[in-house]
């Protein structure tokens, strides 16, 4: 067993990295087993155990099994990958361990092999996910071997806080939590704000149903996020930080705790980081299941131990946030982008993506699509590339009807507009939002009125109740939508819905209420005929809604 890494200085990092690489190279074969939540729930931990047992039983000394983070293609899990052969095995069961070990160094096990020259693998650009599926998220050495914390060392020894902020500004990075506020600008505002204490917060309260990007990043490469947070803290002058994470993500919490402990022991976090005068302590706070806590002022209230209710802005958290101190809040994926930007330079990052949306975006692809899982594509990639090429289309020969982005705050983009590029502006123009990265594909079996009702139910019960337009508006909109799917509505109700949408959008206090009408507005815009079919003809084009009660009442 190797000893845990102790108190590092900037000069130690390359040494630790080369030692870890040398150790890795001493093995002829390395077997990567995905141990992220998706594959784990399909017994990948037993696959790993069996592989280890088989290696031991066969007396192979030059081979090791490594638990790694998410490899992306969750629908084919549990995934196992061989290095250096780069063979990928899919749907591996614990019983398959023997066959895999016996075929080591020979032709791969044909029945398990997963083609890797498919668009799913070739059309992605992995920056945030570069280390996902490559490193063991529970070993600091693995992270350092692929360049982890080297940018932190570079920043602390060579750059002033302002120089870091300039680089981030120059890169054009925008917040990955959904709204797309320029990250560099946010940092410079907090850096300039007056205050004795400042705080850095990482928003890992991934509340959008159908989104699991942040969880995967934290499960697969937690040190990358910690490094980004620490660089942010140095740039704005903070010495304390919080990670606000959903309690529903036990594995991500555990790996993050391990990573924090390892980093503190190695002097990469805590006091005198890398032997410099810079201190930064990170605490974890568990969310307790409230979607509204993704809103920054509500999140701050929750960290302070209160009900997660938002407050009017200004003052913005950049001036008065956690305990009335200037506070920087960024999303997990935003922090994960920091180290690569500094490593390759802001020009490199600005060269990826579109004119106003730079870099890549991670999406959680789910719903009626062949390849579900985690993908990362350059900004500006057209939706049809994601759906048809990377996702390999809709299963069972069905047709794509709509793509939903942005969760309950986003909208549905109809199949006719699949040439829309995914960037902040184009998605807004379509009546949707980028959101945090959930992308749900729907086929002809989905009723768009019912989809709107599904999201309205979500917004209604997640509304914190502080402001009236959101509290009452979402309830009324939900009632009206229920009337439509039950066949009780009239055309006047549709006009009323339209008016309500405008009112709630314009007058709600926070983003939850302001964006709650989006799913409704976008479906009314693109699928108006479905609304009319429900109201006038009492039929559901998707065949999902039942009007039995209405018919009976009509007969009585």
């Amino acid at each position, binding site marked *: 067993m190797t000893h845990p890494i102790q108190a590092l200085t900037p000069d130690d990092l390359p040494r630790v990295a080369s030692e870890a690489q040398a150790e890795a190279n001493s093995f002829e074969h390395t077997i990567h087993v995905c141990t992220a939540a998706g594959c784990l729930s399909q017994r990948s931990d037993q696959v790993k155990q069996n592989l280890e047992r088989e290696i031991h039983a066969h007396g192979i000394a030059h081979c090791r099994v490594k638990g790694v983070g998410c490899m992306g293609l969750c629908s084919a899990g549990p995934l196992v990958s061989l290095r250096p052969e780069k063979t990928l095995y899919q749907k591996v069961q614990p019983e398959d361990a023997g066959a895999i070990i016996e075929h080591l160094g020979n032709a791969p096990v044909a029945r398990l092999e997963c083609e890797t020259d498919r668009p799913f693998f070739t059309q992605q650009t992995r920056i945030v996910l570069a280390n996902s599926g490559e490193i063991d998220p529970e070993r600091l050495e693995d992270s350092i071997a692929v360049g982890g914390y080297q940018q932190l060392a570079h920043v602390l020894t060579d750059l002033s806080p302002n120089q870091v902020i300039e680089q981030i500004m120059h890169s054009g990075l925008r917040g990955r939590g959904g709204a797309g506020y320029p990250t560099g600008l946010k940092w410079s505002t907090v850096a300039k704000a007056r205050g004795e204490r400042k705080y850095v917060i990482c928003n890992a309260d991934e509340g959008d149903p159908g989104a699991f990007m942040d969880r995967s990043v934290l499960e697969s490469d937690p040190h990358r996020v910690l490094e980004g947070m620490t660089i942010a803290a140095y740039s704005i002058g903070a010495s304390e930080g919080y990670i606000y994470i959903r309690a529903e993500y036990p594995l991500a919490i555990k790996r993050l705790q391990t990573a924090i402990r390892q980093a503190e022991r190695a002097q990469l976090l805590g006091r005198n980081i890398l032997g410099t005068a810079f201190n930064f302590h990170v605490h974890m706070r568990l969310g307790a299941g409230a979607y509204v806590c993704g809103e920054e002022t509500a999140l701050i209230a929750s960290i302070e*131990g209160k009900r997660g209710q938002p407050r009017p802005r200004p003052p913005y958290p950049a001036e008065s946030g956690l305990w009335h101190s200037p506070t920087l809040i960024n999303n997990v994926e935003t922090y994960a982008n920091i180290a690569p930007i500094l490593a390759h330079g802001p020009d490199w990052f600005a060269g990826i993506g579109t004119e106003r949306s730079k870099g890549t975006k991670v999406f959680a692809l789910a719903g009626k699509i062949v390849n579900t899982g985690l993908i990362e594509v350059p900004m500006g990639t057209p939706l049809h590339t994601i759906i048809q090429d990377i996702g390999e289309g809709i299963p069972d020969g069905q047709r794509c009807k709509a793509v939903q982005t942005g969760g309950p705050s986003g909208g549905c983009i109809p199949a006719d507009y699949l040439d829309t590029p995914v960037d902040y502006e184009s998605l807004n123009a379509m009546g949707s939002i980028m959101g945090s990265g959930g992308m749900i594909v729907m086929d002809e079996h989905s009723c768009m009125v019912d989809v709107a009702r599904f999201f309205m139910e979500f917004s209604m019960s997640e509304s914190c109740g502080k402001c009236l337009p959101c509290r009452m508006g979402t309830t009324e909109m939900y009632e009206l939508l229920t009337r439509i799917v039950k066949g009780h509505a009239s055309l006047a109700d549709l006009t009323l819905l339209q008016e309500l949408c405008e009112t709630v959008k314009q007058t709600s206090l926070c983003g939850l209420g302001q964006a709650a009408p989006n799913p409704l507005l976008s479906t009314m815009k693109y699928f108006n005929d479905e609304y009319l079919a429900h109201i006038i003809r009492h039929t559901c084009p998707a065949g999902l809604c039942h009007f039995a009660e209405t018919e009976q009442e009509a007969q009585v």
Partner: protein
Amino acid sequence: MMQSAPPLSAEEKRWRMVTATMRKNGYAPDALIETLHTVQNAYGYLDTTTLRAVANALHVPPSQVYGVATFYHAFTLKPEGRHRCILCQGTACYIKGSQPLLEAITKTYHIEPGETTEDGEISLLTARCLGSCSLAPAAILDHEVVGNLTPEHVLDVLKDWRTV
């Protein structure tokens, strides 16, 4: 002869876990949510007596403790059944048919989400999203994430819970 301290009762052990969390956070009022998480883990739910004790220890008004306890979905003020079935109601699960699962259970066992069967065996809960979207429709059946569910499959598992 040395007399050893009497063994701790189950109740004392639970309360020790709660005080450990509060102590770790320096009895700061902002540790309320962390403390309630521990109470929920130790007791299975938040009962009024414990909520009062937490309010006292952290110097937070009981009204505020109650306010926080009822605001967040993770906390429940009712004891739960021996088995827990948490159905995911996320978008991907909804698109792939989580409603039929929910209907099957509510119809068979006459319980709504958040309720427990009369014999205290099964609690039905819903989750906003488990993040296991590639397994949709998914559920947590007694701590285990189970995916690609059908109504028949879920009902079979619940039936086994009752007979065991």
